[in-house]
């Protein structure tokens, strides 16, 4: 759409600007403040330079939680994206099944995150949970409380359960926007099911798939509540992702300096990813 140049539009944006500045810029400045200062209590602060950053970037703990988080994000992307596409391809296209499928599939997305955690905490327990009980009845040694591998499996299963529907919904929205004429042309050319998918459906889902991948990556990169409720970051530190680690340092140990430095590094990573996201969004907007 052709837009007119009008700087008075700033007045319309002003409320948003003030509100978000209050809830984002001020807190962020506090964090920056802490990240370059040290204190011996009594609210007396002194300049500390980049010491906290060096400490954080030099600590194994930071890199380990980051690597764990990246592995986690990679695994759920590898599972959720193809699974989501597969399910979206098999969704009904019209009739009463459409709203029923949409509503039921979207349900996990609307559950408070700690309730999601609670559901899986209970569901996976070997004494009272359906999943844990069934697995141990089948003779599989499953215990997410003590075994790091089982804890990972549980957390990943939970995330797949929680968020695959997002991929399904986005892909489905892309699929229904394909005009019938495309399928008719494919039929006339005698295209196989695979060819229809590869040359018609996949290119048309391009845009929504990009959004799905980026959203899922970013949200899994800052996941906190669900694994915290299920495993508390354990056993040991095996499921301590970046957000969990950060809260442990900030609230658990009250090490404000390192926590603030870590926040800034974390935020910069997210900023970089947001920029990728934004570029992708605006490019596809310009194309379509």
């Amino acid at each position: 759409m052709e837009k007119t140049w009008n700087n008075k539009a700033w007045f319309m944006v002003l409320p948003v600007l003030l509100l978000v500045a209050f809830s984002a810029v001020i807190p962020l400045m506090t964090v920056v403040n802490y990240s370059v200062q040290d204190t011996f209590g009594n609210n007396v602060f002194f300049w500390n330079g980049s010491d906290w950053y060096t400490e954080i970037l030099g600590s194994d703990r930071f890199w380990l939680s980051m690597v764990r988080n990246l592995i986690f994000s990679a695994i759920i992307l590898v599972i959720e994206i193809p699974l989501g596409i597969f399910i979206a391809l098999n969704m009904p296209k019209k009739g009463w099944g459409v709203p029923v499928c949409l509503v039921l599939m979207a349900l996990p997305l609307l559950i408070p995150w700690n309730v999601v955690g609670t559901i899986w905490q209970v569901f996976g327990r070997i004494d009272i949970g359906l999943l844990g009980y069934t697995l141990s009845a089948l003779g599989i040694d499953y215990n997410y409380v003590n075994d790091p591998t089982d804890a990972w499996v549980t957390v990943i299963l939970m995330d797949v359960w929680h968020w695959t529907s997002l991929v399904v919904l986005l892909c489905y929205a892309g699929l229904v926007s394909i005009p019938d004429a495309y399928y008719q042309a494919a039929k006339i050319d005698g295209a196989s099911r695979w060819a229809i998918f590869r040359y018609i459906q996949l290119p048309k889902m391009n845009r929504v798939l990009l959004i799905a991948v980026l959203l899922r990556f970013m949200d899994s990169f800052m996941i906190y509540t669900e694994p915290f409720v299920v495993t508390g970051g354990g056993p040991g530190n095996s499921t301590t992702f970046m957000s969990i680690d950060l809260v442990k340092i900030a609230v658990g140990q009250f090490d404000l300096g390192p926590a603030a430095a870590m926040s800034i590094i974390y935020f910069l990573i997210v900023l970089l990813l947001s920029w990728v996201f934004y570029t992708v969004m605006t490019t596809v907007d310009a194309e379509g």
Partner: protein
Amino acid sequence: MSGANERTTRQDRVSETTVSDGLASTLSQDQIARLMRRRGEESRFWWLVPTIYIIVLMLPIYWLVNMSFKTNQEILGAFSLWPKNPTIANYMVIFTDPSWYKGYINSIIYVVMNMVISVSVALPAAYAFSRYRFLGDKHLFFWLLTNRMAPPAVFALPFFQLYSAFGLIDTHIAVALAHCLFNVPLAVWILEGFMSGVPKEIDETAYIDGYSFPRFFLKIFMPLIASGIGVACFFCFMFSWVELLIARTLTTTAAKPIAAIMTRTVSASGLDWGVLAAAGVLTILPGALVIWFVRNYIAKGFALGRV
């Protein structure tokens, strides 16, 4: 050899095309479309995949519902797939104990406050972004997005200090304002997506007809994007409802959300599984009730208004 092959393929293709052409001329577009559908779905078992998926999705939720109708003895005792002696005692605990049901009231108060604030400030901003170019517009739009993507863990502690300084800790408005961090950008993006779908000629015609801007916006433009406003409200409602970390940090007793009360009870009272399950079921209900109204737009909302 290869030449012969090529010729046959070409002939095949030609004959196929003529057949399809013949088909196309005898059948209506609609009938072809129906044929295509059948072809596209390949088999009569297309419903199998969604059904299995939905069953898998529902199992953990069913288990929670199942537990909420059992007594603690039954939960911890014999393993059973459905409640043998269904009881509503767990729900009665929640509806009669103020420390439980107040949690729901608190949650709803700050969620609604947040929804109203977010959508009302986002409306003019989204209009500006969809209609005008102005100094720094792209940077501003990007900066809003970074807030949607920001990890809440980064903001938990500074929020606590900021709202302490204003004496707002443990008030509903504190949580409502803090949730604006991610809900205002979300609302702006979604509304911008919907507004861009309304042709600009409508604005221009209205101005020519002598409408002032506020009157045009309220009387003509808002009804046109009513579904967009509904979707934005729904997503603000939803993300404020599901968030726990910030809400828990900013409240102690008077404004504590239900989600935080649940975590406290888990650790304190020796795991009252039945009540916990009942509380969980009750937190799912609001979302389940309103989702029906936005079912066709939910993908657009998650894609930040960009599908």
